[in-house]
């Protein structure tokens, strides 16, 4: 296909949008609704993962050093924690004295029983470790246990396992929802465009017998579908932006941004939602139209 023929075809695609306004509006509405659903799923799953990550970092791994451990052993432990920054978000070491004070504080009025307690003889150095993701828990625990000088490593294993499973489930559910919604919208769009294609089947037949290639016949419909997808994507993004911003404003009035239950602000999600809507909309629109016209273009 020559460049001029290509541009003629693209021009036809733009004209096709105006030629069948009702089909265009119906197609835009269908893709818009699908993209809105996709956006809702995306925002929900992004927030779910965000909260789970925060929760996953909360039940920390407690590392208990042996009583009388050496400085070298302490340094080895710290060295491990400092080098694995991809897995370890933060760590906080406490001396026997600090642990003693914490116990006293937790005991409150009964703390007097610890007045003569020789914490240096009975309390170890401890390190509290926060992970970047709960899925690293087993690996980090295993590595820490191998370091000499560490007495035991405690973790909330059940919570960690649950969180890991829950994160995976949310990810899989989001993936499946995306695929299902994508296929449904592709099916709906290809059927809607088929109506438009059917009304232009004579034109397609004429194009074929004057020597138009399959690509030349298909391109206007693909361009038309892509434009419909683009418009739908922008509308879906705008609507989801407004709706989520309003929801965020109302739900987060009394919640601190650093809180465990704080949602992701739309500003940090909008780019991803826009990209998702644009990519899905354009792909659904163009492929759906391409499928619809396929039956009619076989020379």
């Amino acid at each position, binding site marked *: 296909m*020559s460049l001029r023929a290509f541009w003629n075809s693209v021009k036809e695609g733009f004209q096709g949008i105006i*030629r069948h306004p009702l089909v265009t509006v119906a197609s835009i509405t269908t893709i818009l609704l699908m993209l809105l659903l996709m956006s809702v799923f995306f925002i929900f799953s992004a927030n779910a993962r965000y909260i789970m990550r925060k929760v996953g970092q909360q039940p920390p791994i407690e590392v208990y050093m042996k009583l009388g451990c050496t400085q070298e052993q302490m340094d080895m432990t710290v060295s491990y924690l400092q080098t694995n920054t991809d897995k370890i978000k933060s760590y906080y070491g406490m001396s026997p004295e600090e642990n003693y004070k914490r116990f006293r504080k937790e005991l409150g009025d009964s703390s007097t029983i610890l007045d003569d307690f020789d914490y240096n003889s009975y309390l170890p150095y401890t390190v509290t470790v926060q992970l970047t993701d709960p899925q690293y828990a087993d690996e980090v625990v295993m590595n820490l246990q191998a370091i000499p000088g560490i007495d035991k490593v405690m973790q909330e294993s059940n919570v960690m396992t649950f969180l890991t499973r829950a994160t995976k489930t949310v990810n899989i559910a989001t993936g499946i929802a995306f695929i299902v919604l994508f296929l449904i919208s592709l099916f709906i769009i290809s059927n809607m465009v088929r109506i438009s294609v059917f009304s232009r089947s004579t*034109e397609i*037949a*004429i194009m*074929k017998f*004057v020597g138009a290639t399959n690509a030349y016949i298909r391109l206007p419909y693909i361009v038309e579908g892509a434009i419909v997808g683009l418009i739908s994507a922008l509308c879906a993004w705008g609507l989801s932006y407004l709706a989520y911003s309003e929801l965020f404003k109302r739900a987060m009035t009394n919640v601190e941004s650093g809180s465990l239950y704080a949602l992701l602000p739309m500003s940090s999600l909008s780019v991803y939602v826009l990209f998702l809507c644009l990519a899905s909309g354009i792909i659904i629109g163009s492929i759906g139209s391409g499928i619809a016209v396929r039956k009619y273009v076989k*020379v």
Partner: protein
Amino acid sequence: MLRFENVHKTYKTGTDALRGVTFVIEDGEFVFIIGKSGSGKSTLMKCITREERPTEGMVLIDRFNISKMSRALVPILRRQIGIIYQDFRLIETKTVAENIAFAGEIIGVPKKRLNQMVDIVLGSVGLRDKAQSMPLELSGGEQQRVAIARAMLNNPKMIVADEPTGNLDPETSESIMALLLEINRTGTTVIVCTHDSNMVDRMQKRVIEVEDGLIVRDERASGYTAVVEPEQPALPKSMEDEFDSENSEEKESDKPLPEFPPNRGEDGK
């Protein structure tokens, strides 16, 4: 040159539309394809435009076997063939000029040159003043002229017309045929599939008759029906001798047949 070599076409339903068709059409010929409905002539036409692929045999255009050509090349073949249908097949939402230009747009002819080409072909079919009209504003004959103009746009080597006068009154049919004849005089091969017996009889061009998927007649300068020699009643012996002696000098069967004037395309003019 168009050559059919033992072409068979059997549809998926099991119908044998063509059962060994062989003929040659030289460049510049004007040929009528005739036959009853269901005889296979439409399938034959479709084999020329590669709407159908023969199940057996070969269809060659200029020694190129189009029955084996890949799908990607079919559009290129169709640009070499002007196709005209009974129902005109014009796009109702485009003007006359746009309908014609359409055939040039698909191959990316520059706009300025395309406008000139459209003007020329519209002039040749006598519709220059209707360039901006919509197809539905035109009469049937005018619409068919537009279809012919579109078929001519890319200067095809061959024009294939499937019942081009099927929807037209006799007078308009006459003018359409005159136009096709005019195109043929420029050297373009014209193949017309028709039921119009009067037209075929009047034009006295080559006729290929198809019946039950076979060619039953291929005659030059012929009419719609085959000329059958009337059977002579047997004469008594005495009269037969008398008749023989009277005609001994010049028998009718010995006379040379009138020579068919060569087609323009055949002598290259």
